[in-house]
Every structure is written in structure tokens, then in C-alpha cells.
């Protein structure tokens, strides 16, 4: 991984996004800090409900409000806060510079418009081009994402495409504005492995050809290893560890990261070897555990873990961890 210029494109600074529900306040994202540099793929990994999607939606200001609200922190896009931008400006950034691909392409595409029409509309909306130019561009984009017979298929409706093709159409749609940042939330989870491989390859090509930065959200550790330059591990609304992909896999520091990596069967693990498990289950985010949110499940927990909220420590350049084991100020 060459240092793809330390040009920070996006910075989340102590972001807090809560949901105010009848049952109480869900602290879905509770102090998340990370940045995304130009041309890098940042993986966001964690279990269901850890706050990955809410983090992504916060960046795009797509949090349903009410009940959701960004209650603290800041989101900086090329140095400018997105939080105090007027809606119209935000929409321009969202269409022209930041694009998003969600897990279920069927719900994100308009079922009553042809594929071609949807992409053309997006192009015309964001770029000053004629209808013919937009049509040409649409076909080029569909070819780029590997839709065979693109010129013919522009007239088809979403239901006429298979799941893998729809996902590629979604990526084509996201690319129609040449985004600087693509946020992909579980883009391959609903797909078969062979199709997943095609979609991942496409995303890699994007990064290489256009230097597009990508935030890749997934719970699939294999996909993370394959795609990402850096990885942020989320647990219960916090980022517990962030580092380059090699350090995360070879030298994980946070007990949760260690547990997560031990819990996945690799293709060459033997049937007789027991998989490591993490006891207990994911906490409720209305009343998360005190101190370190992982403490009820942590095999390394110490008495102070239930009372002290760990600070984020930089262990080595770029390797941050949020665990009292590494916090010298609290060491016995």
C-alpha cells in the first residue's frame, strides 16, 4: 500500500447519531472518529446493529428525522463541515461527489422506470449535457460495469435484471456523477460468491482507474481482507480499532477484533478444531454497558473496564485502539 497521498477527503470527528424512540434513546453512533483519504478503500466492519449503516447515512444526511438526529460531532468534506450546509448544497455534493450503493438494489432502483432512463436522469441532473450525450454516457457506463448488450438493455426495467446485474446497474448509477467517494453498504451480501467476485473486481477497477475513494461496509471479513487498505472495527456504536489492513489481520490489538477474527472458519481450518467464540451477545444500545461497552463479553476484562470509558490510543502510527489494556494512564 503506497501512501496514496495523505489528502483527507472526509473526516468524521466524534460523531454522535441518536434515535429518540418510545423505548428510549438509541445511541447508534456514539463518538465515531475516522478519516478517508483520497484513493483509499476504508473498510467498516462489525456485527449487526453496531452502527455501520447509521454512520454511512449520517455522512449523507439521510438519517430519518425524527426519530434520528446527529446530536454531536462534525463531518468534514474536503475540510468543510457538511452539517451546517444548506440542503441544496448538500444535495449537490451528494449527487456529484459522494455516491452510495446499498445492499438491496431492488429497493434502490425505481421499478417503473427503465434502467437507461434512471441513469440518464442522474447524468442530466448533475452534468450539463444534452440528451444524446447522456444516452451515450449511459451506455458507456453500463458497458463499464459489465452489462452485456448494454445498448439493448437500456430499455429494460429493473425486474428484468438478475440480482448481480442490478447491483452493477446501481454501481453504474453511482458512477454517473464521477464521485470522489463511493459509500458501499453491504454491496455484495445478497449475491452469490461468483457474482460477488465480479462486483468486487469492478469496485477495485474503479479505485485503480479513477482514484475513487471507497467506504466499504460489510460483516464479511474475507471481503475486507481482499478489498481494503485500512479497516475500522465497530462495536456497539464505537470504533474500537482502526489500522491498515495488514496490522488488523496480523496484529489485532482490541479483544473484540481478536475474537472476531478467531470466530470465522477459514477454508483450511479442520473440522476437529473448535472455532473461537465470543460469549454473550450484542448489547442493547438504549442502555449500553457502562465503561467499555465490550466488557460483559471480554475475556480480558479488568475491574476498571466496567467503570472507565476507554480513550482511543494511537499505538503506532495509524493504529488506534480503544481499550484500557493499552492505556498507560490507567495501567496498574
Amino acid at each position, binding site marked *: 500500500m503506497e501512501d496514496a497521498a495523505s489528502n483527507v477527503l472526509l473526516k468524521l470527528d466524534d460523531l454522535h447519531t441518536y434515535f429518540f424512540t418510545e423505548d428510549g434513546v438509541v445511541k447508534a453512533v456514539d463518538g465515531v472518529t475516522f478519516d478517508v483519504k483520497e484513493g483509499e478503500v476504508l473498510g467498516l466492519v462489525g*456485527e*449487526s446493529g453496531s452502527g455501520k449503516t447509521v454512520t454511512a447515512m449520517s455522512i449523507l444526511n439521510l438519517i430519518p428525522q425524527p426519530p434520528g438526529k446527529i446530536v454531536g460531532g462534525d463531518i468534514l468534506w474536503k475540510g468543510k463541515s457538511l452539517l451546517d450546509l444548506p440542503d441544496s448544497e448538500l444535495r449537490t455534493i451528494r449527487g456529484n461527489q459522494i455516491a452510495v450503493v446499498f445492499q438491496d438494489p431492488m429497493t434502490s432502483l425505481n421499478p417503473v422506470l427503465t434502467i437507461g432512463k434512471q441513469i440518464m436522469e442522474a447524468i442530466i441532473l448533475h452534468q450539463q449535457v444534452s440528451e444524446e450525450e447522456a444516452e451515450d454516457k449511459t451506455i458507456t457506463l453500463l458497458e463499464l460495469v459489465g452489462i*452485456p448488450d448494454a445498448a439493448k438493455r437500456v430499455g429494460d426495467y429493473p425486474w428484468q435484471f*438478475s*440480482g*448481480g*446485474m442490478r447491483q452493477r446497474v446501481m454501481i453504474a448509477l453511482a458512477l454517473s456523477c464521477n464521485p470522489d467517494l463511493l459509500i458501499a453498504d453491504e454491496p455484495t451480501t445478497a449475491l*452469490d*460468491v*461468483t*457474482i*460477488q*467476485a*465480479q462486483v*468486487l*473486481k469492478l469496485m477495485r477497477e474503479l479505485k485503480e482507474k479513477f482514484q475513487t475513494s471507497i467506504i466499504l461496509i460489510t*460483516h*464479511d*471479513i*474475507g*471481503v*475486507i*481482507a*481482499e478489498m*481494503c487498505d485500512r479497516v475500522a472495527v465497530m462495536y456497539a456504536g464505537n470504533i474500537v480499532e482502526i489500522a491498515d*489492513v*495488514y496490522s488488523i*489481520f*496480523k496484529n489485532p490489538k482490541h479483544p473484540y477484533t481478536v*475474537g*472476531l*477474527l*478467531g*470466530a*470465522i*472458519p*477459514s*477454508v483450511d*481450518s479442520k*473440522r476437529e478444531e*473448535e*472455532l*473461537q*467464540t*465470543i460469549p454473550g*451477545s*450484542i448489547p442493547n444500545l438504549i442502555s449500553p454497558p457502562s465503561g467499555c461497552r465490550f466488557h460483559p463479553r471480554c475475556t480480558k476484562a479488568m475491574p476498571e473496564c466496567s467503570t472507565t470509558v476507554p480513550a482511543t490510543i494511537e499505538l503506532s502510527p495509524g493504529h488506534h485502539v480503544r481499550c484500557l489494556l493499552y492505556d498507560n494512564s490507567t495501567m496498574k
Partner: protein
Amino acid sequence: MEDSSTSDTKKNVSGYHDEVVLSVRNLRKYYPVEGGYFFTRKIADIKAVDGVSFDLHKGETLGLVGESGCGKSTIARTLTFLYKPTAGEVWFKGVDLRTLSRGELRANAKELTMVFQDPAASLDPRFTVMQSILEPLEIHNLVDEREKYGIVRDLLIRVGLSPHHAYRYPHELSGGQQQRVGIARALTMQPQVILLDEPVSALDVSVRASIINLLIQLQDDFSFSYIFIAHDLSVVKKISHTVAVMYLGKIMEIGDVDDVYNNALHPYTQALMSAIPVPDPTVKKERIELKGEVPTPINPPAGCRFCTRCRFVRQKCFLEEPELVEFENNHRVACHFAKEINEGTHKLADDVADEELQKQRGLI
């Protein structure tokens, strides 16, 4: 194939017993496609399972893999009598199930049970854990009032829950706990065969591992036979003794797990295995890219079903359907050119100067 479940047979080198529990021959399951004015006329068949044969041994896990729609779940459902097969034979402990009356079938059904993907949806929300676990026994009128609690307590402990969970409702349990109840429920009838259709896909990584450990532990203790379906190929690898790779309703390759994963013979298996993401950033794996999409099971290609996407295809493949034949010990494959491909003497179709072939491939 006689019932010797009580005899203490030794496990073979593959890690299971030699005794065959379930034997499937030429199983077919077609779903009608209805059309016409009131959707009452059958206009075609979806050939979801189209001639599948295998033996399942005592204590063996058979993993079924293949892309969505290839017929994995249909096999499981047909075997648990949720669906009636269109054709073919199912022998269970030496008895041809077609010869049984309805009542006899029902008695057998308790020995073949199923665990489903979504733990929440497969438990009745109005039932306590105890009621859910006992329900199969009550259906079969097998429950003695005085023994109820004892049975449930033992089962809960077996699946790693504690006795006090007996009085909980599903919504009070986590996903992993619900799936444990689902497994306990499958164990209630002391089945011989458990069909597991994506049993861990809905669970989080950290919880998934403990369920996989539990399933392996239970099998080692009781010699259940499993048919295990999952789209996560690493999970299948972990738990299976034998793996069958399906494509468009047929088995393309079947064999010991290590042979199928490390020495895949069929071009489709080779592509599938190469697509598994490796959780190690230092490994850069070479991918065999599959072109195109899976054809419709209403009208599968003539000849080899994989011919529209195979990188080794020849003219013969468009005409003749390959049989599933033994290639080496316990390892069977359905490909005309398996030997040549495996020996490295079979050229890629792209490199063959045969105009007729390229025309058939749609490249000219």
C-alpha cells in the same frame, strides 16, 4: 442398508460410519409455471431438482453448495416431505418411502427433521421455549406429562442454554439463543437425519461460531447425519465430510470435502472455489471469472448444463449430457473432459481454432 443404528459401528477414514441412512436416487422436483387467463393452466416446469442421487451415511455431514436457485433448499424440503417429489426414489434406513402409507410416512418424518434459516420466524411467538420444544412430541402424541420438564431441561443443556430458558418467549432471546432452541426442537424427536438449511446465515459472526461448534459436537456425540446448506463456502468446509456442488438442479461434483475444495475437477467447482474471499490480506488469489448468468431452470441448456459459461467447453458439450461418474476414490464428477482438464492437456475454449465451436458459443 438395514437398520443397525443400535450397533456400535466404527467410523471409517472419512470420519463417519459406513452404514447408509438415506439413499436418494434420481430425485426430481418440478414446480409448475402457471399461465393462461386465470393462471390455471400449466405452461411449463421449473426443473428445480432434476435427477439427483446420493447416499448419506450415519454420522456424516453432506454439504450442499451452489448458487441461489440451483435447487439446494428444494432437496431439503422434498426430503422432509414438505414437498412431494415429482420422481425418483428416497430410501430411508432401507425402506423405499414410496411404498409407505401416509401414517407410516408421518412416523418417519420425525426421524428426518429440519432447522431453518431464520430462527425468529421458525418459532411460534406465542409459545414458550418449553412449548416449542415439546410441540413435535405432542404432534406425535409421545409426551408423558411427568417427563416433560426433564426432557426440556436436558435438551436445553445439550444445546448450551440453561433450564431457566424453558419459560422464556422467543422475543426475550437473542438470535443465537433462538437458533439453539430451533436445534433443541429438531433434537426432540431423536432424529437420524437433520436437514439444516442456512442455519447460521442469519446469525452474527461471533454467534455463528458457537452454533457451528454445537452442531459438530452434537454430531460427534449422537452420530446424527446432517444435510447442511449454506452459501458461505467456508462454513460448509468447516462442518462437512462430503460436499456436493449443484448447478441448475443437478450435482456437478461430489466427494470428500478436501478433494472438492482442494482438488476440484469440475470447471464450475473450480470457479466457485476460486471466488471464496480469503481472510488474509497477504494472499492474492487467482480468480476464475465466470461469464454471464445462470440460465433459467425452465429451459436448461441441452447437453452439459454448464456449457453456456464453461471456459473449457467443446462441441460435444452442447449435444451430450455428461454423467456423474467416479473419477477417483469417492470423488465423482459430471464433465466430459474432467480427465484432460485435470491433467492440464485440455485447452481453453478461447484458444481452440474451431469456427463451429465459436459459433455455438455465440462468439461469432
